[in-house]
């Protein structure tokens, strides 16, 4: 049976405002002592009232506009009622039928695909985050549950897509693009592991022939791109197998279990809560003036797409390199800082995307805390270009720079590993190499042009890579010509 995969995403992003959404408490709660970033409002103490942080609206506007949404000028907040210990008021202040924005879209190009796809965005709305439960265990048994309300009231933006996504790869492409975008907008750090970006997925299988929609399941608890991809793949396979056996897919919420690599049932649709949404009487309707929308629109920073185009035009980079450079805003910034002082852009891009990313990746280090500044890298590249060191030596030096934080010049001075450009010194080595490899010399004389590269390699080996390769080649040719 031919079928189509139907996926819709619900993404929550924590906004990087200084204060929480309805009070003045600080949002920098991560790794802080429990319940130190709280007040009567975010603790939901009796009598406390919410006051909307206007920065949250501004951040929501930025994101919605970047997602090509239509902004609702009249916003309502609603109460979503349910009981859970991490929800101190027993209702979450959210938006329901009058969210801040609707009907947007995002263009994506999935990995290994040449054609772009448009994923429609159904809505964007503002809401508050809940606290966090901490379970104390003894011998695998929960003996005590504690609540940390530091996260309570952190502003969230929920972004809901239409079910336009047809594969796990497209889902990842959408999320990566969204993450890059919110980082560029500086509204969210986009960290899935820390939970500042969270994603739930609705998945179903549609029969291609009839177009009949299948029953959907909702999958939660995926904390990395890898987990999302694996969870989606698992869920698709699971549903397909059920359908192949003519069994039913149950409408339910499922949880991704990282350890077992499976999605597990959490609750069925019948058990779903009735949230009894109604307009929040403690907050008056929010009116967003057209002038505010225009102001935010006019002040939007350069977005990833625009930056990519600029990189291709200004720096003559390939689409692929440009895309990789802009994907993380700070990496793009690093490149641009270096490009101010170094004009061989292609070479620079190769170094940033090659050695730099490799070292960062190996050490699991963020570009922000990289010890090699963009100026340091430029200095290193200039030392290659003026032939003080070879490209090969430079790679070793870069690693040292990365490890020690010292500049290229300092490292070279310390170890004396400059390039050997003394002809007499190189000629002595050449004599020895020719002596040791008479057959290769013969092969070259017999017309095997490539044989000379072996000889160059031998010279480089003897000089531990410090000889200047161009010079070695010239001197070798000269010497062989003379000999023959």
């Amino acid at each position, binding site marked *: 049976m031919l079928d189509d995969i139907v996926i819709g995403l619900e993404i929550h992003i924590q906004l990087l405002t200084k204060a929480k959404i309805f009070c003045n408490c600080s949002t920098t709660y991560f790794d802080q002592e429990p319940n130190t970033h709280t007040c*009567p409002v975010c*603790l*939901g*103490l*009796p*009598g*406390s*009232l*919410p*006051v*909307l942080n206007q920065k949250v609206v501004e951040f929501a506007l930025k994101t919605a506009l970047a997602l090509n949404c239509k902004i609702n000028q009249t916003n309502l907040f609603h*109460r979503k*009622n349910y*009981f859970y*210990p991490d929800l*101190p*008021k*027993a*209702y979450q202040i959210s938006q329901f039928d009058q969210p801040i924005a609707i009907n947007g879209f995002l263009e994506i190009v999935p990995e290994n695909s040449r054609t772009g796809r448009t994923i429609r965005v159904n809505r964007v709305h503002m809401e508050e985050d809940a606290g966090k439960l901490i379970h104390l265990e003894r011998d695998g048994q929960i003996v005590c549950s504690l*609540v940390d309300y530091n996260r309570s009231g952190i502003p969230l933006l929920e972004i809901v897509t239409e079910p336009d996504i047809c594969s796990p790869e497209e889902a990842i492409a959408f999320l990566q693009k969204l993450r890059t975008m919110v980082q560029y907008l500086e509204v969210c750090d986009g960290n899935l592991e820390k939970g500042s970006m969270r994603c739930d997925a609705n998945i179903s299988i549609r029969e291609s022939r009839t177009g009949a929609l299948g029953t959907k399941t909702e999958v939660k608890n995926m904390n990395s791109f890898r987990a999302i991809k694996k969870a989606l793949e698992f869920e698709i396979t699971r549903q397909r197998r059920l359908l192949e056996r003519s069994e039913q897919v149950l409408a339910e919420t499922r949880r991704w279990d990282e350890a077992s690599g499976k999605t597990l049932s959490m609750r069925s649709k019948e058990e779903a809560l*009735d949230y*009894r*949404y*109604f307009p929040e*009487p*403690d*907050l*008056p309707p929010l009116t967003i003036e057209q002038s505010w929308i225009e102001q935010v629109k006019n002040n939007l920073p350069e977005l990833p797409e625009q930056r990519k185009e600029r990189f291709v035009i200004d720096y003559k980079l390939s689409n692929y390199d440009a895309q990789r450079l802009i994907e993380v805003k700070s990496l793009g910034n690093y490149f641009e800082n270096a490009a101010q002082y170094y004009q061989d852009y292609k070479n620079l891009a190769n170094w940033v995307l090659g050695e730099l990313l490799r070292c960062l990746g190996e050490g699991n280090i963020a570009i922000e805390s990289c010890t090699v500044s963009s100026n340091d890298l430029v200095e290193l590249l200039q030392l290659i270009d003026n032939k003080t060191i070879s490209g090969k030596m430079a790679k070793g030096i870069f690693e040292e720079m990365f490890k020690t934080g010292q500049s290229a010049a300092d490292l070279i001075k310390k170890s004396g590993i400059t390039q050997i450009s003394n002809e007499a010194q190189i000629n002595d080595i050449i004599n020895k190499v020719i002596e040791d490899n008479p057959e290769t010399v013969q092969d070259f004389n017999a017309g095997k042009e490539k044989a000379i590269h072996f000889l160059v390699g031998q010279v480089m080996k003897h000089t531990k890579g410090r000889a200047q390769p161009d010079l070695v080649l010239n001197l070798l040719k000269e010497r062989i010509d003379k000999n023959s």
Partner: protein
Amino acid sequence: MPLNELKAVDYLKLIRKREISVEQTVKDILKQIDRLEQTLKAYLYINREGALQEAKAIDKKISSGEDIPPLAGLPIAIKDNICTKGIETTCASKMLKGFIPPYDATVIKKIKEAGGIIIGKNNLDEFAMGSSTENSAFQTTLNPWDITRVPGGSSGGSAAAVAAHEALIAIGTDTGGSVRIPASFCGIVGLKPTYGRVSRYGVIPYASSMDNVGVLGKVVEDTALLMNIICGYDDYDSTSADTPVPDFLLSCREGINDLKFGVPREFFGPQVDIEIKEKVKEAINKIEQMGGKLEEISLPYSEYSFPTYYLIVSAEAGSGLARFDGVQYGLRIEDNDNLEDMYKKTRSKGFGAEVLYRIIMGTYALSTGNYDDYYLRAQKVRTLIRKDFENAFRKVDLLVCPTSPELPFKKGRQQKDLLAQFLPDAHIIPVSLAGLPGLSLNCGFSKKVQLPIGLQIIGRPFEEEKVLRAAYNLEIELKEVNSVQPNFTFNSVSG
């Protein structure tokens, strides 16, 4: 005269003339409390040491020649659903027994900053739900005029305390009449300002879209005096209004020649006690004699007020009171099997019957499939009721009517007839739904048993100034009424 019998305005005059001390006033109040409280039960908490300490501190300031703060140590009783930092705030519910707020409500903050003293916390119907103060989980407050009757509610403790001179003035809350009804039943002045006039921050909600902080005073001037302190926009309450606050005390003393009074036909129907109708009509005649113009008007949708009100407040209460779940503060039943069991047991045992009724009804009204039929429809009718008033206020400046259609009733009636508890609210609730200012002024007494009769004056949004002015002028005309005091011999009877 013992100082606890002073009007607030007279107290301030005497303090400023340095003829009396704050300490002596507080002591006289505490003496009266000691004399009557055993019977009256108006207070849930008496701030003895705290109030005396404050009083001494303010006296010291005054004697050292420092500026006298606006309220100059005025002892004020506070309804126990308003958060007072460091003082237990229970909402007269087992659910909040032992809850000590870590913060002051904005209204408390303003009172403290103005030099007011909190004398204690008053009894109320649990979470302000009721009109007799019999729904308190802890005690039943009695009417100082007749201790076989209720003081009205839900601010019954505050009204009884003021009427019995156990406080010079009190702060209550009014969602559907909870300041005006007890003011009427206890023969004092009760003002519910326009919705948004006074910050609700720190007021434990019953129904957010209708809760108001109000004042219960012995006379109109006292009410105006405290209004000057508590009104105004608050950064902590998004529903508070950024509307200028006039000097109510100054403006209420002006005349009423310019004012036109509407008499709503619907509020003089057969539901109204004959004696009440008579007294209110006498007062209306006085208004005319004083130069006020009269016109009969109609509020056709007011008859739908009760179901509209009950649906909206229940829905909001069902959500607003959900936070009392045993997790963070207040009551928790520890003997439970799991989380859900803890919620169920805690909430079943923590809330009284009336609160549970409303939570259940509110939950039902908001459930999927019922929302449009109940909550949404109620909101639409609320708009119609509001429009009734808008139409009326195109013709007149103020409306006058009986506050309650019935006299203070005997305690225990509610147990026999659940719906009867809403009878007193008929003329009160439409005003609450429309968010308008309303004041109850005593306009006389019934003949057989001497029971107070209240007259309600209703104004346009944010026109408390006119409401107070009309009330002040009428109060002077009715001065023989104000000379009558409750008979406090009951303390020896029951004591």
